[in-house]
């Protein structure tokens, strides 16, 4: 259906309203009832469809600017924007007057905070609900992902410029830490203010850490404005479609209401304090609102800017595998064994979870590092990983870090918000721990807690979120790489590989190669696996034989072998595991064990 051609980018609400009024009028004419819009609760009347077809079928996506910290002041309110972020907290539902009768016409407030028409006082109205998500840029998001789908340059889009706002925003934007909310709260009751100060404290300490991290990574680890967050209001979404820590692209109406920014200065109204919803702490002057029309979850594939058009055929994948492997070997100082293990590690993902057993993860521990070699190879390795995977972080493990860092996300029941921790990560993140920083020393209780968290993450891919009265397990899928001198006991990895470099890496990869490698990693990781029942039998026999030869083999080793064999199969682009891959893994294991002795 093509209605009057509205400027969907410049005036999305116009399109929303016109479709609504048209549909409502039609419904009213059809049924003759007084309540024609009741059916629209929790449903789309065609507006979202209109946008979806505009965005994805008419290539409108490229015309929609991407909202980020740098252009926050430049985009005009009530225009269509895109925002990519991780769902950091779910703030529950919000009720609003979805539709009301203005005279004889039904009007809607959907996709906006403010009614453009004044609502007549006694009027028929309907209460609808929407979900609130607090979104932040995905932690550890690497800079290459930003180039993948750039919107039009906002500065050149004169139509979207909001000059009158620019000055104000610049001032506000100076200190745009998401947890700090000075404007909205200067005047609020002291009872309410206390927790906020704690928040600031916590978040600043974690940013300090993050700075330390980014230094190690050569500075470009944290994308600029990473503390920039957004309050996304999502409509008509069935429950639990979006999960915490999902990375999602929201396309919707960016709103800014100066009236909402006005601080509520009725401090004697104590009771409102508790009924007050958490959005108050996210003043609109700092945290933009986005009324989402269309959203989609982002997979690593979506970050690749120029995906090769070809189908992933084994021959192509094999070629890329070879080039990636040789590059990894170079970066690792000509240590091919380590490079192979690293490749498997980078391709691993959590495939299954049975009770407490996780299948498919492959955490890697390179041993034999000291401070110097870690600084040479570690930095090379980290910067390469940064260029290969969408989200990665490198953490220098030191006693001080363990004792001070906030790893665990924690619910602050006073403010009603989830205070993020280092371990609140999107699925598929990569973490590198450099344990060479670790010296002897004593851990505080917080340090012990942090090590327990890390160990739990390593062993069961779960992070305990602290909800004050209870802990909640959140399933994660994080690749963990540890660099250490000896085998790390704090972070017990699946695979321990002694690192034996023979040269110093000096190469860097071209951008085209990087592109293909990223595509390779994303493709192989999502490759489905299907194995014939005959193979099961062969593998089982192989395992029994292996156990006969070596009594020390346990469930975990064999399980790891199988994981490695499966990843090896995928790495060649094969959909099913064959004996050949099993043998390759066995050979790899043999070489590894030789080194361990």
């Amino acid at each position, binding site marked *: 259906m093509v209605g009057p051609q509205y400027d969907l980018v410049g005036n999305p609400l116009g399109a929303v309203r016109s479709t609504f009024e048209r549909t409502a009028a039609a419904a009213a004419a059809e049924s003759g009832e007084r309540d024609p819009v009741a059916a629209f609760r929790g449903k789309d009347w065609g507006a979202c469809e209109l946008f979806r077809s505009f965005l994805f079928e008419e290539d409108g996506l490229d015309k929609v600017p991407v909202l980020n910290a740098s252009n926050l002041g430049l985009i005009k309110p009530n225009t269509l924007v895109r925002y990519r972020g991780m769902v950091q907290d*779910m703030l*529950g*539902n*919000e*009720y*609003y*007057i979805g539709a009301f009768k203005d005279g004889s016409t039904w009007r809607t*407030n959907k996709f906006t*905070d403010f*009614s453009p028409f*004044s609502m007549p*006082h*006694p009027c*028929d109205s*309907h*209460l*609808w*609900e929407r979900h609130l998500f607090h979104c932040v840029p995905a932690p550890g998001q690497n800079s290459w992902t930003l180039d993948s789908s750039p919107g039009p340059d906002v500065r050149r889009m004169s139509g979207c410029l909001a000059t009158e706002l620019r000055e104000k925003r610049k001032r506000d934007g100076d200190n745009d830490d998401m947890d700090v909310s000075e404007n909205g709260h200067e005047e609020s009751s002291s009872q309410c203010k206390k927790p906020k100060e704690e928040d600031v404290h916590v978040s600043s300490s974690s940013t300090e850490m993050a700075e330390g991290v980014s230094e190690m990574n050569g500075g470009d680890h944290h994308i600029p404005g990473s503390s920039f967050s957004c309050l996304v209001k999502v409509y008509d979404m069935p429950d*639990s479609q979006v*999960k*915490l820590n999902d990375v999602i692209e929201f396309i919707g109406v960016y709103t800014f209401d100066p009236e*909402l920014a*006005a601080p*509520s200065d*009725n401090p004697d109204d*104590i*009771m*409102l*304090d*508790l*009924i007050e*919803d958490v959005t108050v702490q996210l003043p609109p002057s700092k945290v933009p609102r986005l009324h989402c029309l269309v959203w989609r979850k982002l997979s690593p594939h979506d970050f690749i800017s120029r995906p090769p058009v070809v189908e992933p055929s084994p021959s192509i994948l094999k070629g890329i595998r070879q080039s990636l492997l040789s590059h990894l070997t170079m970066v690792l100082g000509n240590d091919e064994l380590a490079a192979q293990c690293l490749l498997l590690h980078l391709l691993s993902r959590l495939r*299954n979870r049975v*009770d*407490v057993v996780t*299948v498919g993860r492959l955490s890697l521990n390179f041993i034999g590092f000291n401070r110097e070699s870690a600084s040479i190879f570690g930095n090379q390795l980290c910067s390469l990983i940064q260029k290969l995977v969408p989200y990665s972080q490198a953490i220098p493990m030191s006693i001080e870090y363990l004792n001070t860092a906030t790893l665990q996300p924690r*619910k602050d*029941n*006073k403010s*009603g918000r*989830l205070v993020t921790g280092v371990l609140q990560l999107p699925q598929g993140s990569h973490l590198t721990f450099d344990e060479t920083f670790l010296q002897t020393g004593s851990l505080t209780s917080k340090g012990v807690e942090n090590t327990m968290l890390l160990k739990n993450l390593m062993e069961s891919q779960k992070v305990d979120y602290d*909800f004050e*009265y*209870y802990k*909640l397990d*959140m399933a994660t899928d994080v690749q963990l790489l540890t660099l250490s001198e000896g085998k790390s006991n704090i972070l017990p990895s699946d695979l321990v590989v002694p690192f034996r470099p023979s040269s110093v890496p000096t190469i860097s990869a071209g951008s085209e190669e990087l592109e293909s490698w990223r595509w390779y990693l994303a493709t192989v990781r999502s490759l489905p696996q299907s*194995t014939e029942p005959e193979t*099961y039998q062969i*593998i*089982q026999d192989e*395992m*029994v034989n292996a*156990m*006969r030869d070596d*009594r020390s083999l*346990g*469930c975990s080793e*064999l*399980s790891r072998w199988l*994981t490695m064999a499966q990843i090896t199969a995928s790495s060649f682009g094969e959909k099913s595991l064959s004996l050949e891959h099993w043998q390759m893994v066995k050979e790899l294991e043999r070489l590894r064990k030789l080194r361990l002795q």
Partner: protein
Amino acid sequence: MASNGGGSSTPSASSPDGRPSSPLPVTNSSPPQSTRRTGGRRRRGSASPYASSPSLGGFETPPHPSRRTPSGAGAGAARQQRQNWTGRFPPTPSTPMSTDDIPPSSEAGDDETDGIGAGIDTVPVFVWGTNISVQDVNAAILRFLRHFRDPRDAGRVDPVMDEGKYMRAIHRILELEGAETLDVDAHDVFDHDPDLYSKMVRYPLEVLAIFDIVLMELVGRFEPFFEKHIQTRIYNLKSSICLRNLNPSDIERMVSIKGMIIRCSSVIPELKEAVFRCLVCGFYSDPVMVDRGRVTEPHICQKEQCKATNSMTLVHNRCRFADKQIIKLQETPDEIPEGGTPHTVSVLMHDKLVDAGKPGDRVEITGIYRAMSIRVGPTQRTVKSIFKTYIDCLHIKKTDKSRLHVEDTMDIDSSDANKSTEEDFLNDKVEKLKELSKLPDIYDRLTRSLAPNIWELDDVKRGLLCQLFGGNPLRLPSGASFRGDINILLVGDPGTSKSQLLQYMHKLSPRGIYTSGRGSSAVGLTAYVTKDPETGETVLESGALVLSDKGVCCIDEFDKMSDNARSMLHEVMEQQTVSIAKAGIIASLNARTSVLACANPTESRYNPRLSVIDNIHLAPTLLSRFDLIYLILDKADEQTDRRLAKHIVSLHFENPNLEELEVLDLPTLVAYISYARKYIQPQLSDEAAEELTRGYVEMRKRGNSPGSRKKVITATARQIESLIRLSEALARMRFSEVVEVRDVVEAFRLLEVAMQQSATDHATGTIDMDLIMTGISASERQRRENLVAATRNLIMEKMQLGGPSMRMSELLEEMRKQSSMEILLHDLRGALGTLMTEGAVVIQGDNVKRV
């Protein structure tokens, strides 16, 4: 404009402003004495700047003259509140309320619901906007209160019981004169009149207001001078809603939700009646009622002589306040879907409900879901299109905290008091559990359900199951008590998923505590005394064992625990108490825990040539306190290897071909165990007792097998106690009140399996309890005796009394020449040690001298 306790509000009567005020509006009009003399008075003193005013004596005010009758005010306020919701606004402002006993109504020309037909007739009085006929509801409630009889009382023919359940309750209130609330079970309402129930849930404000009126009328008939107001509190709705599923259509309905209190506000005094004083002449105005959170300050002094304008000021300590509190309720962890964060909702508590729950409590709240518009700013008249929601609380019930409802079986006399918690176990759930228990293969099914991802180890799992179910503790009149808890030790090679089993048990068991031996100290396990840094008082703090009272305490890496810490376990494992005598505190704490410990062999891998004692290096005294000791050995066995391989492969491929065994999921298993632990107290049947005796005698006999000279103890009194516990646990698994012969047989089998592994003397192949009790098997003891005798003979032969000493190595060579046995230096040294204690020889370094 006077300040008011409720907050800011614009005077617009028809604003969509659902003020958070009492859910039961009648509290507004409750006689002043009651509240004033209690909470209101206290607060007034502190809140008011006039507290020390000289005219304090004059504040004993009589009830003010303009008091409305409870009924009129109640219904009126109810109607007013009704207008404040969901954004459906009446076309005209409401008319002033009537003060007679018939609650006001509007003409039913309303568009909502199905009340169109009823609206034509003007005779019945309808609540505005509904199809509720006031008279009908009135009569229905009266019928309910008068005639509802608890079906549970039906059997009784007591003439006193002739009255309905709630009439009795009302009489009780009148007699006691204390309670101001009447708790009404919504199930009772439903049973009596489903129509009334549905009306009540759909239009709670109106129906509850009428409920209160009827109640007060009823009370008035019994006792005309009863002045307190009695509130109706509804609880136990038919269906409780998940916090997450609250949606706009629930607004203004009665809902029942479960959750956890995460935060409480301080108590807020809310102004109910305001009194003003003229600053010019000192005239006190009549109390002004607070109307929807606002009071109107009189502009002119009402005293004829004065008539000063704008001279009235609020007199805080003559005003009447009510308590109010807001709590935040959060979803309980089990209701949160995967990958979600818990939702919260604000709950408004009034009067008696204030401080009824503390943060951390799990509660079930019955209340009215309300929405309130957000004002943009105090100066702005515009109302945002966004609403805030909260629940006006009617009733709060604390629900059980723990996952397993285990009231200990030891407190037998408390079983009567726990009737209310019995209701927690929903009847149909219990039925389901009972059905399960009747399955013929329930024992195997339970075994499979326990840690299903750990394959094999079936007998170990059976033992662990017994531990979860537990035996019956016994307390003799003489004071002696026998524990019902079963202690288990798992010893095994590394990588045999012992720790995983432990983790699983810890998850399953009530008050499960998981500690690691390496990190546990003696006090950390038992209890310790500290000095409070602030007050200097000595405080007793419980350790893991005390905390897991009535639960399972899982101790991983038992072998790596310090000896000191381990020795503390002696008392716990048999006496089930922890005694403390320190720093002025002498206490004996209950620690009725089952201990589940797991240990690695000393040489990290089990050495089959050594005894269990040598392998685990635990004190035999402690070892004997374990009912079952399992050796989990990694044996080379093609069959197990194959099964392991199959298991791993199936994990990786999600092979659909693999047989799906029927297992109970974790919650069901937990419920099953908790139900059994709580309600099933099996007793030994005569046959079972006989079997027990027979088996025990047989076990002991086995040691005296003909042919073997030595007497081997294969069973001790400790074993028979263990057997009783095990068979009781086995009976519990079937929900059987009687321990049958088959339970005893299975218990023997379990014990034997465990003993065969741990107490088998490797030299002879027989079961030898001495191994466990003393650490030395009978055959070993025999061997040592022989060696001592041989050594003595040799020394008598070769050495002279007081003669030159002999080197030990020489002695050893001599011995080897004589004896066919292989003798080690270590053995010889032991034998010589025995001789030295006898006074036959003296050992100096490496030299032996006969004396």
